[in-house]
């Protein structure tokens, strides 16, 4: 079996005349905790939009578990095992927290055997893991920021992914809350889920990741272990200016 779960090969993406991604190649191993950093506008979210299917890459290929997925619509990729959370939370506001999780359970996990499945029970179990059980019947638009973040992770997990992409799941949280979310991600990784973390909070990425890539202006400028990345001159330049 191939070691790499996700292979991004020479992916490029342009918006009009603006090059958001320029020939980016990344391989992510099964079970890896992978950090993706870079200043604002460096192409992090564009990259994971291309991986999750919200955007189509213009050039290059994306292989997930040995299969070319870059032409598949997003829902097909979710069904193959790629799940994500959003930088700005996107809850289903007309539903309760529990129902938010039922959507992926119905459309991904149990779509072939819906009448037999106890989707509500499963959703409840997931909420318990996330510490959101007491909010199960709350309308999703009444959650606090940290609860929203957790719900997004829980909803992504409900699709039973093999690869979880966490797009700034900790933005705007207090340090205690950051620790809480980090702990959840560590726990998920321990169950064998590969995780890509995009984050601006350096302490969190550095603590979490086994390997980090830094993007700047759509290119990979540096790749390595977290402690090497922070010392890298290019990374410092990209973040702090010349």
């Amino acid at each position, binding site marked *: 079996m191939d070691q790499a779960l996700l292979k991004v090969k020479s992916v490029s993406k342009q918006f009009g005349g603006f090059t958001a991604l320029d020939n980016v190649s990344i391989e992510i191993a099964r079970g890896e905790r992978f950090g993706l950093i870079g200043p604002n506008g460096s192409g992090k979210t564009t990259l994971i939009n291309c991986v999750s299917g919200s955007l189509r890459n213009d050039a290059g290929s994306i292989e997930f578990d040995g299969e070319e997925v870059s032409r598949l619509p997003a829902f097909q990729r979710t069904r193959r095992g790629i799940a994500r959370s*959003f930088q700005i939370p996107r*809850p289903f506001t007309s539903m309760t927290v529990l129902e938010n999780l039922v959507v992926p359970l119905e459309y991904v996990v149990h779509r072939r055997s819906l009448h037999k499945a106890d989707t509500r029970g499963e959703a409840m179990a997931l909420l318990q893991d996330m510490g959101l059980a007491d909010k199960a019947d709350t309308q999703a638009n009444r959650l606090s920021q940290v609860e929203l973040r957790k719900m997004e992770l829980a909803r992504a997990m409900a699709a039973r992914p093999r690869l979880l992409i966490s797009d700034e799941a900790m933005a705007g949280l207090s340090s205690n809350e950051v620790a809480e979310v980090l702990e959840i991600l560590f726990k998920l990784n321990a169950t064998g889920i590969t995780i890509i973390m995009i984050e601006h909070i350096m302490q969190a990425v550095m603590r979490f990741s086994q390997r980090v890539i830094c993007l700047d202006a759509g290119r990979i400028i540096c790749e390595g272990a977290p402690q090497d990345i922070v010392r890298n001159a290019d990374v410092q330049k990209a973040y702090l200016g010349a």
Partner: protein
Amino acid sequence: MKFWISAAVLLAAATASALLVKNEYFFFAAYTVLMFVVLATAWNILGGYAGYVNFGTPAFFGLGAYTAAVLFKAFALPLVLQILAAAAMSGLLGLAAGLLTLRLRGIFFAIATIALVVIMETLFINWRYAGGATGLQLLRPPPTAPFESYIKMLFVLMGVMAVGAVALARWIERSWIGRGLRAIRDNEEAAECSGVPTLRLKVFACVLSGALMGAAGAPMPMYLSFIEPASTFNLNYAIGALASPMIGGTAHYLGPVIGALLLSSLQQLVTVTISSEMNVLIVGVLLVVFVVLAPDGIVGLLRKWTKRFSR
């Protein structure tokens, strides 16, 4: 179960009244009210559940009506078959229009549906066999027993269709399909990333919605003994189909029913007592009032109140 019992009771009462009550006008007016129940329910499947505002109701409704009229003229097809054929044609229109336009979001989709109405009207204005711009006079066959008048028969038929449409909408609302549609309305990108095949689901909703609108239009040529493009593809159908769920509430299958019963009855009343121009004004005013003061409609208001009193 409660739903089916109430539906059966209502239908039985409607049939009994059609057989017993002598006043023909009541059924003439009630037919229109029931027709708007079907239209509003159909509209709500795409417009309410999935949040795709559709101004194209007259296109689907009119295609259904013309399908029925042309089939009647050509083969003297019985009414039930006319309705089925009309539903199929309008469903196909929904499929084609859906595949072409449902990639557009928000206001762009709404604009495209208006264009659909103009296209369909132009088509039928230029089709000589279907009567062209002057229209087509149709001679009603005798009513089927036990009904002694055609209008009363159509009234009961529309009642059956209304129950069918509401039952269908209710089933969708409570199934995984309804949850998927709501996910699309709440956030399409998140829905797609949760495994919801958004385009497929939207097209499905558009086909079903279109087919029901077509079915609602099918008896129209027989109801009027006449069909012509300008009144068949009239934008008032679009407004009625859209306003009723907005007033009744889009989140629950009873919303469009309550809205249509209220709005259409009021319109019928005003048309008779004041003037037919006045009833358009009433829709406008009510729509504005509800959108501003009760965006969740009457069903939303009722829910809010029951919550308050149960505390």
